[in-house]
C-alpha cells in the first residue's frame, strides 16, 4: 500500500524520541534494589602459570560480599564457552577446540584473561578489594604475532595444538593456479597485514545478574545482540540449567558491530554470583577495562598474487594467509577465516584460484567477528590486487574491473569457493559511482593539489558482502483494541528495526504505523530468536515478518467471512481491507482484529484473537555489493592523509527505508576508514601487553577525520528472499578500507611507493615516502 509509512519510504525513526530526550535504557542505567557491584580481576601476563591466589585480605576488606576464583567455578561444576561453528561442522578439516573458562585455573593465556571476581556493596569497595588479591604468577614465554606462532620452537599456547595450529583451510586448485601464474603476462603481488582492531561500541558491555529464590529464577540484563544466544550459553553450557530458568533481557544496546553477538565470561559470572548472594550483581567496565576484556577483530596476514594477461583479463589468483585467533577459538571466531576464504573471489570471473589460511593460536585475546567478519579481509585483498594488476599493465583501474566483472546474465553465479551469488549489476553501479565522483576530471583536481604541494590520489574498489544467515521467526499479535505488536526474534541495537519492521507490517496489513509496537530483547516475551548480526535482520527477520503477515491475513479471513457473511473463497485482502470480490462490501484488518476478540460468537476453530507466526530459513544468502571511489590529499612533509571526497553507489537490493540504509552506509564507511587510517590494536610482540588500551592510544575516527559522503543506489532485487532485500549493515565497512588505501598508493605511486600498510598513519606514510625517495 502506498503510504508515507510504507516500504521504501524515508520514515523518521519512532525510537528516536527516547534517545533524544535521555530516556534510553542501557545496562548502566538499570539499578536494582539491593544491587551489589562486581569487579573483574584479570591476568596482567600474556602467558603464565598461576602458582597461588590469596583472596583473604580482599575477603575481609570493607563492604566485600564475595570473592570468587576459578577453583570456585570448578567446584561448582561451571562449564565454559566453546565454538558456535568450526570448519569441520560444515565438512571442513578438523580443528583444535578450546573451552574458555569463566575464571582461569592453572594457566592464563592472554592479558585480560579473567582470574577472579570481587563483589562488594559499592563499586569503589570492590575496586579497592580487587587490589588486595595476591596472585603469584610464573610467567611463560608468549607468542603474539601469528607469523611468530607458526615458527618452529614458538611457545605453544595449547599443549596438543602443534605449531599453534587450530585449523587449516584451503579452497581452489593449487596445480592449475600455479601453472597459470607461472606462465602469466603479469603477476601482481601484495603483502597485507589486515590489522587487529577493537570494536569500541560507545556503550561498553555491561551485565547485571539477579536471582529470585521464591521462583528459583535468574535474570540477566546484558548489552547483547543476541539474547537467546546468551541464554543458551550461560544457562545451557556454563551453568548447566534449563534455559527457561534464565531470563535474558536486553533493553537499549549502544552499538554492537559483532562484538556483542558473542557471550563473555561476565555474563555468566554475574548470574552465578547473584545466585550465591541472592542479590543483584552489576558489572560495568570502564573503557580501559573494556578494551582489555573485549574480544578483538581482524588480524590476518597474507601474501597474495594475481595473474593477468595483457588485456587485463584475470588468469588466476592465489593467497596464503595466517589468521590470528588469539588464545581461544570462541563463539563465531572460526567464522571469520571461513568467510574470508568464502568471499575471496570478489565480483570477478577468475579461471582458477587458490586461497588458504592457517588459523593459529597466540597469547592474545580472542578475535571474533567485527563488522564484516572476513568479508573485509576478502574484499581488501582482491581490491588491492586489482589495483596492483592495473598499475602493472598500465590499465585504468575502472577498466580492468569492468573487463572481469561477473555479468548480470550469469546469476546465480557459483564461485570457486562455493558461494552462489544471487544477483547484481556491477558495471552499472560502478559507472554510476564514476559519474557521481566526476572520475573523468580527476587529473584536473590532481593538478590543483600539486600546485599546493599536495599529492592527490584516487582509489576505487568494488566490494561484495554476504548477508542473511540462518533462520528466524517473527510473531504478529493484535490486541483487543486493534493495535498490533511485532514480536521479533532479531534484536535491533541501533539499526532502527522498530521503524523498519513497523513499515513492513503497516504496509502489508494496512494497520496505521503509530498503532504498531515492537517487542524484542526479552527471552520471556520472545519465544525464540537468533538476534542481529551479519546484516541478517532485513533479509531473514523481514522475510519472516512477511510470512507472519500472510499468516495473519489468512487467519483473519475466517473472521472477516463471518463479519461480511461471505465464503472465504469470495474474499480478497487488498490495501488493508478484506473485500468481497466483485462487491463494495469491505472491512479493514483492524476491525476484523477487534472482532476476533469478542467473548462469544466465533466458533472454537477460529481461535480467540488474531495473530500469526512467520518463519524464514535462508537457503541462499544475499550479496550486497557496490562501488566506492575516494580521493585523498597527502601532505608529503607530514604524511598526513586527508580524505577529500568519498562516493559510494550500493546495490542493497530493495530498500525498506532509504534514510536508514544511508545511515548504515555512512557509519560503515567510517569504520572502514578507521581501519585504513587510524585504528590499530597493538600488543607488544614479546610480552603481549596491550599498547593501545585507551582512546588516547587507539585512534577512533572523529568528525574531522572524514568528509561528507555522496551516496547513490543501484538496486538489483535479490531473488533470495521474498522482500528482495540485501543486508545493508556491513557493505560500507567492507568497501571503504581498500578504497582509501588504493587512493593513498595512487597518490604516492609517482614517488615510487607501491604498497601501504594498515593503518596508513602519518608516520607510516611519511616513512614510505622517505624510503622511496
Amino acid at each position, binding site marked *: 500500500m502506498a503510504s508515507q509509512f510504507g516500504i521504501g519510504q524515508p520514515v523518521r525513526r519512532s525510537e*528516536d524520541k527516547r534517545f533524544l530526550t535521555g530516556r534510553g535504557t542501557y545496562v548502566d542505567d538499570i539499578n536494582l534494589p539491593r544491587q551489589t557491584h562486581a569487579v573483574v580481576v584479570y591476568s596482567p601476563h600474556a602467558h603464565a602459570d598461576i602458582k597461588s591466589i590469596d583472596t583473604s585480605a580482599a575477603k575481609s576488606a570493607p563492604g566485600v560480599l564475595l570473592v570468587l576464583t576459578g577453583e570456585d567455578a570448578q567446584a561448582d561444576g561451571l562449564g565454559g564457552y566453546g565454538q558456535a561453528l568450526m570448519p569441520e561442522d560444515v565438512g571442513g578439516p578438523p580443528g583444535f577446540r578450546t573451552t574458555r573458562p569463566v575464571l582461569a585455573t592453572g594457566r592464563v593465556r592472554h592479558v585480560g584473561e579473567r582470574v577472579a571476581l570481587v563483589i562488594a556493596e559499592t563499586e569503589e569497595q570492590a575496586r579497592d578489594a580487587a587490589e588486595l588479591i595476591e596472585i603469584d604468577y610464573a610467567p611463560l614465554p608468549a607468542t603474539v604475532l601469528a607469523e611468530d606462532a607458526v615458527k618452529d620452537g614458538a611457545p605453544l599456547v595449547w599443549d596438543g595444538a602443534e605449531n599453534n595450529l587450530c585449523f587449516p583451510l584451503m579452497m581452489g586448485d593449487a596445480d592449475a593456479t600455479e601453472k597459470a601464474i607461472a606462465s602469466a603476462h603479469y603477476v601482481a603481488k601484495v603483502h597485507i597485514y589486515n590489522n587487529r582492531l577493537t570494536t569500541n561500541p560507545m556503550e561498553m558491555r555491561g551485565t547485571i545478574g539477579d536471582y529470585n529464590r521464591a521462583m528459583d529464577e535468574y535474570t540477566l540484563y546484558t548489552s547483547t545482540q543476541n539474547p537467546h544466544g546468551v541464554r543458551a550459553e550461560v544457562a545451557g553450557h556454563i551453568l548447566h540449567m534449563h534455559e527457561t530458568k534464565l531470563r535474558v533481557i536486553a533493553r537499549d544496546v549502544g552499538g554492537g558491530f559483532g562484538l556483542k553477538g558473542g557471550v563473555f565470561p561476565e555474563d555468566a559470572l554475574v548470574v552465578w554470583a547473584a545466585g550465591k548472594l541472592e542479590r543483584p550483581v552489576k558489572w560495568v567496565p570502564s573503557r580501559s577495562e573494556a578494551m582489555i576484556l573485549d574480544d578483538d577483530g581482524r588480524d590476518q596476514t597474507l601474501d597474495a598474487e594475481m595473474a593477468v594477461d595483457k588485456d587485463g583479463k584475470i588468469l588466476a589468483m592465489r593467497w596464503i594467509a595466517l589468521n590470528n585467533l588469539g588464545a581461544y577459538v570462541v563463539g563465531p571466531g572460526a567464522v571469520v577465516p571461513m568467510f574470508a576464504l568464502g568471499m575471496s573471489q570478489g565480483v570477478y570471473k577468475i579461471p582458477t584460484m587458490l586461497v588458504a589460511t592457517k588459523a593459529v593460536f597466540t597469547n592474545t585475546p580472542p578475535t571474533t567477528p567485527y563488522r564484516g567478519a572476513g568479508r573485509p579481509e576478502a574484499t581488501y585483498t582482491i581490491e588491492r590486487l586489482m589495483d596492483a594488476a592495473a598499475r602493472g599493465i598500465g590499465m585504468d583501474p575502472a577498466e580492468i574491473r569492468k573487463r572481469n566483472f561477473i555479468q548480470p546474465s550469469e546469476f546465480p553465479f557459483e564461485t570457486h569457493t562455493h558461494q552462489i551469488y544471487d544477483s547484481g549489476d556491477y558495471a552499472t553501479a560502478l559507472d554510476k559511482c564514476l559519474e557521481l565522483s566526476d572520475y573523468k576530471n580527476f587529473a584536473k583536481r590532481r593538478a590543483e593539489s600539486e600546485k599546493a604541494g599536495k599529492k592527490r590520489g584516487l582509489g576505487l574498489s568494488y566490494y561484495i558482502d554476504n548477508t542473511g544467515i540462518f533462520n528466524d521467526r517473527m510473531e504478529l499479535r493484535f490486541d483487543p483494541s486493534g493495535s498490533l505488536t511485532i514480536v521479533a526474534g532479531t534484536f535491533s541495537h541501533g539499526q532502527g528495526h522498530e521503524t523498519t519492521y513497523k513499515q513492513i507490517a503497516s504496509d502489508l496489513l494496512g494497520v496505521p504505523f503509530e498503532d504498531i509496537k515492537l517487542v524484542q530483547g526479552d527471552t520471556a516475551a520472545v519465544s525464540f530468536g537468533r538476534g542481529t548480526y551479519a546484516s541478517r535482520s532485513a533479509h531473514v527477520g523481514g522475510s519472516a515478518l512477511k510470512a507472519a503477515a500472510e499468516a495473519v491475513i489468512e487467519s483473519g479471513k475466517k473472521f472477516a467471512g463471518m463479519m461480511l457473511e461471505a465464503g472465504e473463497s469470495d474474499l480478497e485482502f487488498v490495501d488493508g481491507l478484506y473485500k468481497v470480490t466483485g462487491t463494495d462490501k469491505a472491512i479493514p484488518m483492524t476491525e476484523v482484529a477487534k472482532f476476533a476478540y469478542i467473548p462469544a460468537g466465533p466458533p472454537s476453530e477460529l481461535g480467540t484473537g488474531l495473530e500469526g507466526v512467520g518463519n524464514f530459513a535462508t537457503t541462499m544468502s544475499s550479496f550486497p555489493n557496490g562501488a566506492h571511489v575516494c580521493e585523498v590529499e597527502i601532505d608529503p612533509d607530514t604524511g598526513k592523509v586527508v580524505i577529500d571526497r568519498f562516493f559510494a553507489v550500493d546495490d542493497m537490493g530493495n530498500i525498506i527505508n532509504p534514510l536508514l540504509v544511508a545511515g548504515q552506509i555512512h557509519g560503515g564507511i567510517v569504520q572502514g576508514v578507521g581501519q585504513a587510517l587510524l585504528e590499530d590494536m597493538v600488543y607488544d610482540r614479546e610480552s603481549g601487553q596491550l599498547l593501545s588500551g585507551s582512546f588516547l592510544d587507539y585512534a577512533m575516527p572523529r568528525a574531522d577525520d572524514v568528509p561528507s559522503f555522496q551516496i547513490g543506489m543501484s538496486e538489483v532485487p535479490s531473488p533470495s528472499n521474498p522482500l528482495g532485500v540485501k543486508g545493508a549493515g556491513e557493505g560500507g565497512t567492507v568497501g571503504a578500507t581498500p578504497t582509501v588505501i588504493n587512493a593513498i598508493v595512487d597518490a604516492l605511486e609517482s614517488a615510487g611507493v607501491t604498497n601501504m600498510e594498515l593503518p596508513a598513519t602519518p608516520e607510516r606514510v611519511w616513512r614510505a615516502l622517505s624510503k622511496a625517495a
Partner: protein
Amino acid sequence: MPQIRMTVNGKEVSGEVEGRTLLVQFLRDHLGLTGTHVGCDTTQCGACTVHVNGRAMKSCTLLAAHADGADVTTIEGLADGDTLHPMQEAFREHHALQCGFCTPGMVMSAIGLVKDNPKMSEKDVRHGLEGNICRCTGYHNIVEAILDAQTKMGA
C-alpha cells in the same frame, strides 16, 4: 562529606557527595538522570556532555563539588514538554543517531557549538565535534543536523 546544591534542569537539588564524586556520577547515581552517559575514562568521548552555567562541559572532568551552586542542564531538561529543542528535532529529522548512546552528549555539545558560533561552516562543525565520538553514524547526518539546527536556532 560535602553538601552541595545546584540547579539541575530548573530544579533546586542538593546532596552529600564524596570529594572524588564526579558531576556525571552525581547526575546519574544521585539524581537518577541517566541520560548523561559515560563512554570513556580519559575525557575523550563527550558522551557525558552537559551544560554548566550555559556552557557545554564534559561532566566526567568536573567534580560535583566544583559544580556547587551551578546551573546545570542535562539532556533530560532540553525539551519543552513534548516539544523537542530544535537541535533534538534536527537530529531526528536527519537520522543523526543510531544506537543513541553518544546522542545526549552530541546534542548538548552541538548546542554549545551553535551558541559559540552561530555561523558555522561544515568544517567548523566537524572541527567543533572533535571531543565527541560516535561509533555508529559516521558523523555525516550529525553534521547535517547541526547545520540545519543552526539555521533554525538563528531564525
